[in-house]
């Protein structure tokens, strides 16, 4: 039975559970809903939750675990010689999955019967032609080992699916019966629903946290592989970035980190003053009317996709900087430059700084402004000496958040600053950042066992650690100084 059907049945059972649970609760109260412990709807909801949620949870776990189990079992069947021939275990297994999928397609289209699919042998049938006939193209002839592994794979998956369907439906039915049987007028359905809601909410946040952990672990694993192939000293302290897929690459982090920091610095030099001044104007000076249309206008900047900013850098800002600054000053003739990317990225970051700072400035109590005006201070004196110091922790937090955005930005850099890893002080020189190189190392034909490809994961992990550090620092600063006023 397809999964969709199973889920539909479970959900339908839940709906029936809601209606019946509700009805039964009212019936046990003799039709007088007032003597029930909870509102009738709670009894229904309780039955529905206990019917649906455990079954769906088990399903989620099952769907993750079953393929892993099946793969291990099938992998055992493949002889070492076949693995050697194909190059790696992973390649054989992808063949197996492809053939298994092909057999399914063939049955669906009627080219093979279920029995034939189970019993065909490479000795008697040309499996490759048969599958090509239903639109599944295979790269090479199917070996007997792969075919039997694929058949085994299908069998295990089928029985696994069947077993899962039975388990899920049983679980849903048991949940239904159990909670339905417990429904009577003294049952505290309201409290039980409350507890279930808590569990569901906790599960949701756990998933978010586990995903983060998963991302880190997967990067850790591949980074570990990279450091097995490439010495970590040369990665972290190398001053050259010259990857070459023929071997003998130099994969130093420093040029990329330098580019990242340089571009981010210029971006912040643009974004922080402009964003902060805009925020002060919005929060302190602008009339309600101006504010009501100017603020959304500024925030539009945040909604522009970064690739569009990249185009702006490529066709407008880059050539302009080259023609009016770099060439007359004799600083270079490249339209891709740190300056271009930095300025455009700074424009992108303005709304981040201004919007957050605006909220923070607005949160400074009016009593502090009154106090300052009452002493005969002007508006700008008040802003400079009272409001900005009071809002400073929040503003620093906003700036650090903008900095982590700048460090993670890719598109503007590709189009604005180029892709050459280089250490140079000249801001009109093309340079590049960590993120650009991650993309560069993983696009095109890549061999995931070479350090040139795996270096992307080490770069990603480094970047993750840097931005995580900045975010933690931002949170720490905001928390530590938050209660200065009040």
């Amino acid at each position, binding site marked *: 039975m397809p999964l969709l059907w199973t889920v539909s049945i479970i959900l339908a059972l839940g709906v029936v559970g809601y209606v019946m649970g509700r009805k039964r609760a009212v019936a046990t109260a003799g039709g007088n809903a007032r003597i029930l412990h909870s509102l009738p709807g709670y009894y229904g909801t309780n039955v529905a939750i206990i019917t649906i949620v455990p079954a769906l949870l088990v399903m989620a776990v099952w769907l993750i675990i079953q393929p892993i189990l099946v793969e291990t079992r099938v992998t055992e069947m493949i002889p070492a010689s076949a693995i050697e021939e194909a190059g790696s275990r992973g390649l054989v297994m992808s063949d197996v999955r492809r053939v298994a999928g092909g057999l399914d397609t063939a049955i669906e289209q009627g080219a093979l019967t279920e029995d034939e699919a189970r019993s065909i042998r490479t000795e008697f049938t040309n499996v490759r032609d048969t599958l090509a006939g239903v639109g599944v193209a295979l790269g090479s002839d199917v070996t007997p080992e792969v075919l039997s592994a694929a058949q085994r794979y299908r069998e295990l998956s089928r029985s696994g699916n069947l077993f899962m369907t039975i388990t899920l439906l049983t679980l849903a039915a048991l949940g239904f019966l159990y909670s339905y049987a417990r429904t009577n007028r003294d049952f505290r359905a309201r409290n039980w629903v409350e507890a279930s809601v808590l569990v569901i909410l906790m599960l949701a946040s756990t998933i978010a946290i586990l995903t983060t952990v998963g991302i880190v672990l997967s990067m850790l694993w591949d980074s570990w592989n990279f450091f097995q192939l490439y010495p970590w000293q040369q990665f972290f302290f190398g001053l050259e970035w010259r990857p070459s897929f023929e071997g003998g690459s130099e994969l130093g982090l420093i040029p990329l980190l330098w580019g990242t920091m340089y571009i981010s610095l210029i971006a912040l030099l643009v974004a922080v003053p402009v964003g902060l001044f805009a925020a002060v104007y919005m929060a302190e000076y602008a*009339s309600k009317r101006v504010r009501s249309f100017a603020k959304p206008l500024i925030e539009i900047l945040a909604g522009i996709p970064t690739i569009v900013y990249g185009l702006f850098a490529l066709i407008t800002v880059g050539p302009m900087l080259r023609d009016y600054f770099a060439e007359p000053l004799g600083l270079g003739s490249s339209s891709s430059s740190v300056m271009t990317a930095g300025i455009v990225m700074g424009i992108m970051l303005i709304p981040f700084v201004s919007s957050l700072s605006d909220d923070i400035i607005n949160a400074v*109590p009016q*009593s*502090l*402004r*009154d*106090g*300052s*005006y*009452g*002493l*005969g*201070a*002007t508006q700008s*004196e008040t802003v400079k*000496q*009272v409001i900005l*110091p*009071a809002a400073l922790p929040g503003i620093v937090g906003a700036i650090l958040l903008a900095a982590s955005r700048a460090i993670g930005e890719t598109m503007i850099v590709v189009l604005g600053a180029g892709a050459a890893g280089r250490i140079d002080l000249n801001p009109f020189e093309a340079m590049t950042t960590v993120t650009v190189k991650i993309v560069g190392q993983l696009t095109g034909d890549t061999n995931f066992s070479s350090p040139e490809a795996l270096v992307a994961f080490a770069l990603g992990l480094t970047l993750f650690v840097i931005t995580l550090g900045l975010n933690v620092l931002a949170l720490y600063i905001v928390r530590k100084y938050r209660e*200065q*006023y*009040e």
Partner: protein
Amino acid sequence: MNDMSVSRDVDTGEIKMRARGVEVFYGDTHAIKSVDVDIEDKTVTAFIGPSGCGKSTFLRCLNRMNDTIDVARVKGEITLDGEDIYDPKVDPVQLRAKVGMVFQKPNPFPKSIYDNVAYGPRIHGLSTSKGELDEIVEKSLRRAALWDEAKDRLQEPGTGLSGGQQQRLCIARAVATNPEVLLMDEPCSALDPIATAQVEELIDELRTRYSVVIVTHSMQQAARVSQKTAFFHLGELVEYGETGKIFTNPDDSRTESYITGRIG
């Protein structure tokens, strides 16, 4: 202090501020209706009245704090030493240095005690050297009866003081700019009785140098600290006179009803 008799000593000085026909509008609301008051020098004048009667609004007219509210409009004439404070020639920022204000809730800046007091003198350039500024800070803290408690912790944040100390710090801050009039908008309503007593004592001392105007909800407080009392009701000034007389023998029946607790 604590003297409710009619024949209390009122050493009336000359008139410091004079208000004639003052009207205030908040948008369409007519908040103050034709108020005439003379505020005397070296005197504590109390404004009493039920909530929403306009006493705080009127107080804020005296140093043009209402200018910071967009919808507020003020009509009529208010003079300080005979000069119209709403004259276009007058800079409201300069005026507020002369007419200081202390607010209902203590609002020290998130700065050190020293910087809080030095804020006004620094803005107005009242000192030319660090030594002079130190002197102003010490003098102001002494006047606000906070010096002994604060002298060893001048560099600690003003927000770390207790509520009563914070309010005295705000008074020291207002005194530091050398004002001629000190406006106080319910300065004790956020304080406990002991802190209130300290602040009231302080107000009585401040009277020797400044003209003090205090808005209060507590009639006992008005009776304790003021020499003159003005009773506001529904945006009108109902009665204005010597405190002893207002509290023992008011002319207007509404005043009598309010102080005896029948309206309000």
